[in-house]
């Protein structure tokens, strides 16, 4: 019973990580990765390592998505042009 939180958090981590692998579009993958980061932070906290959880939250909640999405934008061409050419930019 005491490990319920650890089991729950682990399940969430496994589900989110699998979903991140199965998601093919990088922009959508960034969203799943953010969820994976949140699940990992809960797992770390449940395992009594708040320092690691804080690192995960600091890096995973805004910084990594920003870098990923900027890279996606660069690879697909500049936002306004890509937006006009295709629906999804």
């Amino acid at each position, binding site marked *: 019973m005491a490990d*319920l939180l650890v089991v729950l*958090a682990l399940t969430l981590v496994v589900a*989110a990580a699998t979903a991140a692998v199965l998601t093919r579009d990088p922009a*959508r993958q960034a969203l799943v990765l953010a969820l994976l980061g949140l699940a990992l932070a809960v797992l770390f*906290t449940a395992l009594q390592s*708040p320092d690691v959880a804080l690192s995960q939250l600091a890096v995973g*909640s805004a910084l990594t998505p920003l870098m990923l999405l900027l890279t996606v934008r660069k690879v697909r061409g500049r936002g306004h042009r890509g937006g006009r050419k295709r629906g999804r930019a």
Partner: protein
Amino acid sequence: MNGWLLAAAVVLALGVAPALWGATTGPLRRRVVAQNVAALLVCLVMLLLAQGYARPSYIDLGLVLAVLGPAGTLVYARLLAAELAADPPTARVTRAMTVLSAAAPPLVVLPLCVATGPGRSLVKLLLIGALLTAGNTISGRAVSGTTSLPREAHDG
């Protein structure tokens, strides 16, 4: 396992797990909304865990997530704006999200405040609740408001 930890487990199972499902399937609008909701709920889980493990210093996790969670959602709202504008969340979803952002933090923070008792940590809890409510309301608005926004009103 005390009541606080049980509450955290309930929020994880009934809140974060469906949010994960929402963020991995369906159209982009649903995924971004689910991410916003997940950040809100995990912040509340952190507060509950801090109380459940009787570790006041764990509160800082909730504090950090209360400011960075909305910032994360704003990143998506900004960089996926074209796609979100083409297919924004429905008004019903937006309203539900606003209600959740306003209602969920007090539901968790107020019992925590009662358990904490008067003092500086009480003020800190209230502050986290306020930051969380304001931040998530705004980020929810940014996700849904990309088209409903009048094009002239850009100078606040």
